[in-house]
């Protein structure tokens, strides 16, 4: 077979393959499904904030303004001073409690980044009336929460411009998952199967509440 005949034959094969592919739409890398998002649409949904401040809207708000909003819209659950009512989240205090029996994980004692507060208020608060606050109100609330945690002064005004200057004290105490090294001993070749321990003692019984149906009547064994 001459070279040109070979090329022709190959081309024919290729054309056939392409035709078959096109029929089932398998050769195209892009499906063309969906449509381009409009900038107004992206602006409406892309409201997330990062620790470096990316995503923050223009605006500002003071501790004092935040206090008014907080008492009106937040204190019913979170308490007047962010101490938390019932089992709703505690937002302030808890400093130095993380190693204790009862750690209190508040914005000031635990959270690594102030941006998380702004982002979360903006997307999910107030509970039951989400996305109802203006950017200025959100800055004000964030400022008030920082003040409740003794991180800024009472005359502080938070804005997009000075946001990055606010650092939370517990930031450095977070580290990435290292279980595969720190817990390497959980990868064991041959776990013990027989005579693994001499004695077994019951050290604790389920307590607190009676959540099991009919748990007071013991079962009947036949």
């Amino acid at each position, binding site marked *: 077979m001459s070279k040109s005949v070979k090329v022709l034959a190959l081309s024919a094969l290729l054309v056939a393959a392409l035709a078959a592919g096109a029929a089932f739409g398998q050769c195209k890398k892009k499906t063309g499904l969906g449509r381009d998002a409009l900038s107004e649409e992206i602006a409406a949904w892309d409201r997330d904030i990062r620790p470096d401040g990316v995503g923050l809207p223009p605006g500002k708000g003071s501790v004092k303004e935040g206090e008014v909003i907080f008492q009106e819209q937040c204190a019913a659950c979170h308490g007047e001073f962010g101490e938390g009512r019932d089992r709703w989240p505690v937002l302030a205090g808890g400093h130095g409690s993380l190693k204790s029996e009862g750690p209190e994980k508040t914005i000031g004692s635990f959270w690594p980044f102030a941006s*998380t507060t702004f982002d979360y208020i903006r997307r999910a608060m107030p509970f039951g009336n989400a996305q109802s606050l203006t950017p200025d109100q959100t800055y004000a609330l964030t400022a008030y929460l920082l003040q409740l945690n003794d991180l800024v002064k009472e005359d502080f005004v938070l804005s997009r411009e000075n946001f990055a200057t606010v650092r939370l004290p517990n930031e450095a105490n977070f580290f990435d998952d290292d279980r595969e090294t720190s817990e390497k001993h959980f990868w064991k070749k041959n776990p013990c199967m027989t005579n*693994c321990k001499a004695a077994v003692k019951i050290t604790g019984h389920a307590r607190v509440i*009676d959540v099991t149906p009919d748990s007071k009547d013991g079962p009947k064994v036949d």
Partner: protein
Amino acid sequence: MSDNTALDRRNFMRVAGLAGAGLAVPALAQERKPESVITEVQDWARNLGDGVQAHPYGKPSDYEKHVVRRDVEWLTAGRESSVNFTPLHELDGIITPSGLCFERHHSGVANIDPAKHRLMLNGLLDRQLVFTMDDIKRFPGRINKAYFLECAANSGMEWRGAQLNGCQFTHGMVHNVWYTGIPLKTLLDEAGVKANGKWILAEGADAAGMTRSIPIEKALKDCMVAWAMNGEALRPEQGYPLRLVVPGWEGNMWVKWLRRIEVGDQPWHHREETSKYTDLLADGRSRRFTWIMDAKSIVTNPSPQAPLKHKGPNVLTGIAWSGRGSVARVDVTTDGGKNWRTARLDGPVMPLSLARFYVDIDWNGQEMLIQSRVMDSSGYVQPTKDELRKVRGVNSIYHNNGIHTWLVRANGETENVEIS
């Protein structure tokens, strides 16, 4: 079967006190009265039952009304941001019925008209795109996968000791479902991820606007966007009409009511990956991005809600799973960990899916301390609770995968206990 296995089995039976002869003496035939359920014609054998279409959408028997999700009221401040639990002790096999999959919502169940649902892809992409549900279902390469979903806080109440009597409450924040959808990679490829796109942010359409950061490697590896579970549309409480599936990783990342995927060059550090779902250790430092669910198993029967009722033959069963691969083996002890026997796995054993195990026992009424221990395909062996506490303390809340103990008393009553 090797000689060793036979020996192990004999040994197991002996330690469990199960090898004795003549346990159950069958009543003599003449002492029994005929059972009326046999000798009398029952209503259902005489009368006509419901015709077709009496229940256009079928539901379980009236006699199964106790098989429901349950919550623990004191756990949370209100039910819109709360959790309920899968009744594991009432289930078998590996698939969780859709209506029994535990729920965890942060601002209640979003009730979404699928015609009004949109999925947006934006950020570090060649194109910023919007898809309708119809668009998503027209993509080539549809897949079906069974995956477990476990809340990272499953068993979180047990860090300081035995708390709740029932595997529904101690382990019920897990379910295993068949998902239908497309790989997330398909959508990301359609939009074209830019070279500096290293993370995605998944966002829900609910009033919590749930968000999680996920590394791009995972997003491209095996994440799915799913619109169906167990062959039908997602249930509203599981994210109808669209959810993210993040195989093997903590349930909170499987964003429900999925409306947006943003691609960025760094993680967002949002609430659910900073203030929550980080693991506080004894030294006061916190481990973050602990996405993988460590291997875990639990005996579901017997358990406090499913006590033993009969001496003699009984089926001990449970479930096991691992976020690092497949279940390789499950061992069971009935003497509190002195001696173990390898359980039988039945049904498909698939990666990142629940596996079902069984041990057929012959119970003579002796007290038992039952535990199960899973090993996964990576070689990880489920640790004891004390081994876990030793490296993590008791303040972690999340990722408690320690070996769990049930005490079965002589009367069959079963209790959640901790042992030395």
